[in-house]
């Protein structure tokens, strides 16, 4: 789960990580009064959307007076921000964060991540603040410092010293980095974050460290124990169909093709997309109904797929391991009848009771194209989407 910059900064503040003072505004008038209250020579008006690259896209601007902040906020609020992370459709700006400006001496990068391969925490630091870390990694990997932290003992002072001296900070800044990184690390662990990135981390002309921008992601599997983090969810920022799917406990990812997919199991569902591509077609979605599915879940999945106007055919690919194919077939027939499926349906049932399942499909009176092998399923679904009879 992602949160907005202003929410992330609120959390950082709670863990003692220094952030610039700021206020949230949803109207130009609020932006003006926020700028006045901040009592700063300049303020920064920052669009609040779940995407990086806001500055380049015109979503972050300096204001020299409260009136200026009002004018800029009126431009940014309601605009559709298109960055390399939003895709062509962009994201509507509903809120702006008004923040006090600061005198910048240096811009650094600092992040805490979970390192899957090393199975520990990694602190990633770089002198190239303000740039995307992937870009630094590909252009100047020697400018990235990675320090591994053992989850059994946690962050130690020597980790902080390695990073401070590695970044070329003066010795008197080590204590400041200890407060900063200590807070960031404690937040990461306490709230089950999966990414805590400060970019840039600013060294001010007075020698202080400030989190100028930050990104926090949280482990969805741990949200059950963090009511405070759950409350930060902004439904407006999420894909409507993906959100609906997650409420139904279905794994769904929208794609841009025309063959809707209903598959049991994540691996088989990914492989089904690969099969469709290999057959010359294009999947409309990834959808995993779960390894052991049932009639209700099949019906819910159908509904979700049919909401996508791009879908010209649906491929149902079920490997019945424990779940019996005859029961799945009954679910498919019931759902197709109930929902009045308007597009061609290709169904492949394999595994336990597959033959019985296929009989149920054949005798249903519905226009269902059966497929036996994985390859057949892909080819027939692609043909069906093209309007050809398989």
């Amino acid at each position, binding site marked *: 789960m992602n949160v907005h910059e202003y929410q992330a900064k609120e959390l950082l503040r709670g863990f003692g990580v220094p952030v610039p003072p700021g206020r949230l505004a949803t109207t130009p008038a609020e932006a003006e009064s926020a700028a006045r209250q901040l009592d700063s020579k300049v303020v920064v008006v920052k669009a609040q959307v779940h995407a990086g690259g806001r500055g380049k896209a015109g979503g972050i601007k300096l204001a020299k007076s409260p009136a200026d902040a009002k004018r800029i906020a009126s431009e940014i609020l309601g605009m559709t921000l298109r960055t390399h992370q939003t895709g062509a459709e962009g994201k509507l700006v509903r809120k702006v964060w008004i923040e006090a400006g600061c005198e910048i001496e240096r811009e650094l990068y600092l992040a805490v991540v979970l390192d899957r391969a090393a199975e520990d925490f990694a602190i990633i630091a770089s002198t190239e603040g303000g740039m995307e870390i992937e870009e630094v990694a590909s252009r100047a990997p020697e400018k990235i410092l990675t320090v591994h932290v053992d989850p059994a003992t946690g962050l130690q002072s020597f980790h902080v010293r390695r990073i401070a001296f590695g970044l070329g900070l003066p010795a008197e800044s080590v204590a400041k980095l200890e407060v900063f990184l200590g807070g960031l690390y404690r937040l990461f662990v306490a709230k089950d974050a999966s990414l805590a990135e400060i970019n840039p981390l600013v060294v001010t002309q007075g020698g202080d460290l400030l989190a100028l921008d930050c990104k926090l992601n949280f482990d969805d599997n741990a949200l059950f124990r963090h009511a405070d983090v759950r409350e930060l969810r902004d439904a407006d920022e999420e894909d409507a169909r993906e959100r609906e799917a997650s409420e139904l406990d279905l794994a769904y990812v929208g794609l841009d093709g025309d063959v809707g997919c209903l598959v049991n*199991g994540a691996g088989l569902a990914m492989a089904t997309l690969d099969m469709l591509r290999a057959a010359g077609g294009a999947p409309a979605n990834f959808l995993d109904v779960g390894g052991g599915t049932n009639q209700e879940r099949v019906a819910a999945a159908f509904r979700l797929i049919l909401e996508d106007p791009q879908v010209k055919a649906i491929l149902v690919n079920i490997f019945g391991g424990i779940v019996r194919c005859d029961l799945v077939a009954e679910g498919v027939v019931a759902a197709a009848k109930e929902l009045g499926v308007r597009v061609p349906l290709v169904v492949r049932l394999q595994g336990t009771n597959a033959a019985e399942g296929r009989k149920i499909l054949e005798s249903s009176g519905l226009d269902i194209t059966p497929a036996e092998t994985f390859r057949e399923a892909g080819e027939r679904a692609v043909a069906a989407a093209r309007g050809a009879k398989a």
Partner: protein
Amino acid sequence: MAILCDEKTKLLIQGLGKMGRFHAGLSRAYHTQVVGGVAPGKGGSEIDGMPVFDTMREAVQTTGANASVVFVPPPGAADAILEAADAGVDLVVCITEGIPVLDMLRAKRALRGGRTRLLGPNCPGVVTPGKCRIGIMPAQITRPGPVGVISRSGTLTYEAVDQLSRLGIGQSTCVGIGGDPIIGTNFVDALALFEADPQTRAVVLIGEIGGSAEETAAEFVKAHMKKPVVAFIAGQNAPSGKRMGHAGAIIAGGKGRASDKIAALEAAGVRVAMSPAEIGETLAKRCPELRK
């Protein structure tokens, strides 16, 4: 021979909810020695003819179990894994999906250097055809034979096993290692076990997008494996930045792409099936002598 489990395995079930009981029954029907279950507060009773214990310690001491399978819901699953290790079983298989990754990070760290091997979490378990079934796999599609199967997925594993069985190629052991970012037994561990297993003559590896386990596996194959390996990588058409069902299946920051994994495996001499329909055929072509 086989790996991880056989007819001598004595299995405990941790978590006797609907799913745990159902699969305990299927494992018993497959002639697996299911010697008991653990359900705190229900110790001393019997469920489905199995003795039930309050703690893993007591269960292991009483039954002599050397393996356990965890069906405990996510909030208590890491605790169940650590309890199994504390009780001294050789193998704990965790089926549970949705465990917080930090719980697994700590649990994995705690298991380091100990006697207990963890398989999973978020995995379908392990089947040694004709001998032992731990977890939720449909054992009826397997048949005994010379091919080891290792996979991050559930149903895609069944698909591959089914393709092999239909071609007359049996399996030594089918291992689901799980779809989470942090898992107990990884590809390299399972490859090493198969390389050392006299029954296994070839290995099928089924990977997917996310992380770098396949790349590490490729290095291991190149350096240490004499037995042929064929592979399939799911998610060749997955978009970047989206989690594809499994918690670990995500291309992040340009890393974890299928194309990189396929290239690494091919460079290590692994033959990679480009279509999921061709996993069995690819193995059959690579090792025609294994077909019966």
